């Protein structure tokens, strides 16, 4: 029982990482109707910016806020500079551009900050709760919940959040009612980059900072978003925790899996969920007209 509880809590802690990233994935999906494969690398890059600021002596929370602002501006800039000109290109071409961005960010981070693994500070006190779960993990858990609340309110109660949803769901009609669809896309990119930055800064104290830190985690983030339902921020967070817990329990209790096949578990999980609930556990089913 002790082991079981321990594994659940470790799963929750890992799940918080995935949930954080899944939120950013959902955000960009709400805004542009695509996955952004460069999301993880953008978050990693933001985290490095924060690390540099802390390294020159700026207090943590100031650096934290500045990073969010810079990431937001960076996200908007990427949309305006790179994606606006190819707005009408086929979807597959967009994905190639995502891949190009991923390569650029990964390589640039390696060139600027070199490839050695760096320790990233945590804003929360050291220590743990009953030796079961670290205080940083608990802090991260609450940060994720606060983010979730903020996103929910943004989409539900603000004019601009509603406008953004409209722009993603039906760009033509949105344009007709006076929404500036182009800028909504840019805003979505900015917000997704900002949320990604928060995720990166929360994850970095656990997995340490290096240019490849996000490659594995992003897959879990996608899995979490899919399992929970890509249209639902709450579902994405629940999906993140679920993926974290299942991955840990399967690794512990099914001897054939162990630690070497953990990723395979994520694969099986995605495919199984999608088979039975193609829109995820909490997602809305979307009806289209022929």
């Amino acid at each position, binding site marked *: 029982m002790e082991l079981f509880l321990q594994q659940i809590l470790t799963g929750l802690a890992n799940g918080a990482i995935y949930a954080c990233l899944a939120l950013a994935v959902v955000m960009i999906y709400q805004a542009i109707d695509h996955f952004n494969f460069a999301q993880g690398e953008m978050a990693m890059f933001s985290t490095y910016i924060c690390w540099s600021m802390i390294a020159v002596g700026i207090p943590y929370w100031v650096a934290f806020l500045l990073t969010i602002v810079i990431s937001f501006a960076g996200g908007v800039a990427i949309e305006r500079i790179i994606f606006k000109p*190819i707005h009408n290109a086929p979807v597959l071409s967009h994905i*190639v*551009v995502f*891949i190009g961005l991923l390569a*650029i960010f990964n390589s640039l981070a390696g060139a600027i900050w070199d490839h050695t693994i760096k320790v990233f500070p945590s804003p929360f006190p050291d220590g743990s709760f009953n030796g079961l779960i670290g205080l940083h993990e608990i802090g991260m858990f609450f940060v994720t919940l606060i983010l979730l609340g903020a996103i929910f309110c943004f989409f539900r109660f603000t004019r601009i959040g509603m406008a953004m949803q409209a722009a993603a769901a039906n760009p033509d009609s949105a344009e007709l009612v006076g929404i500036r669809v182009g800028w909504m896309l840019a805003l979505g990119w900015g917000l997704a980059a900002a949320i990604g930055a928060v995720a990166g800064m929360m994850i970095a104290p656990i997995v340490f900072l290096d240019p490849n830190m996000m490659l594995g985690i992003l897959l879990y983030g996608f899995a979490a978003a899919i399992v929970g339902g890509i249209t639902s921020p709450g579902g994405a967070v629940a999906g993140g925790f679920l993926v974290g817990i299942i991955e840990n329990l399967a690794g512990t209790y099914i001897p054939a899996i162990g630690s070497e*096949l953990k990723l395979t578990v994520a*694969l099986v999980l995605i495919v199984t969920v*999608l088979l039975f609930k193609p829109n995820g556990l909490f997602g809305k089913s979307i009806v289209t007209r022929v």
Partner: protein
Amino acid sequence: MTTDVETKVDPRLTSGARINVKWVAVFVILGVLFPFFIDGYTSFQMTLTIIYAIAILGLNLLTGFNGQFSLGHSAFYAIGAYTAAILVYHLDFPVYVTIPIGGVVCFVAGFLFGLPALRLNGLYLALATFALAVAVPQILKSSHLEGLTGGVQGLDIFRPDVPEVLVNTFAMTMDQWWYLISFGIMLLLFWAAWNLINSRSGRAMMAIRDNPIAAQSMGINTSLYKSLTFGVSAFYTGIAGALAAIVIEFVAPDSFTFQLSILLFIGLVVGGTGSIWGAIFGGLFILMVPNIAEEVSTGLSYAVFGVILILVIYVMPSGIVGLVDILKVRLKKKL
């Protein structure tokens, strides 16, 4: 009752598509003579280009002609390669026989993966296949399969020698011989793909891509065609994988990471989705451009590669074939 309006139908529309024999003949002759004018390393590189082109064509059948995304084709490439390697290494199969077997094994694997994939579309499918691509190297490395796959170390295999006659008459080297074999297989597979696309089945595949619901209401069995296309696509990629294993004489899990899937995908888009001969350009692109990027700057090679990619999409959003089509139209207007 007969219709009173006589419609004149353009005979080109009813006679079906024709292969442009002139150009194909030029291509084949140049392709066959090519290895005799270049050094061994270049012909090895060209062999790899051909292998990539085959794999990209497989991906194109699925994505370009049937509208199903896949970022998991490195998995099928790996299955093809390992099938060939295991048959040669453990069971002493003749090397040439393993190539079609690799393809057939992949066909089955692809068909089976295509069944659950039926329920997914667009980016969901891209993600599920991406997960497949990430999982396969892990499974290959897994200690449970180590006896079969050689684990992290992989397997070494050896190619048979060039037939005696060819060595005596043409002084043919190993690289040239395998270039020619790959070239022949590529021609065969391209011809088969061309026939498939211009058949009833090909039209069904494209109808499903353009509007699945309309296709279904016209009596096309969409589930069957979609999973069959998955199988055929995997077949092509599996043949490419088997060829690669033999040409490189070595297989290891780390040659088949998801990066390979992404490279194939880039080759597909850059070459041109929905075009058969675009695959050759795609193959050239993914073989040459990373090397060029490496030469420009070793430390920032990925960044250079990324910039090149983005620029390529800017200049030709629908790939090289799309660019050629636009240029053709412009040229015709001028004349």
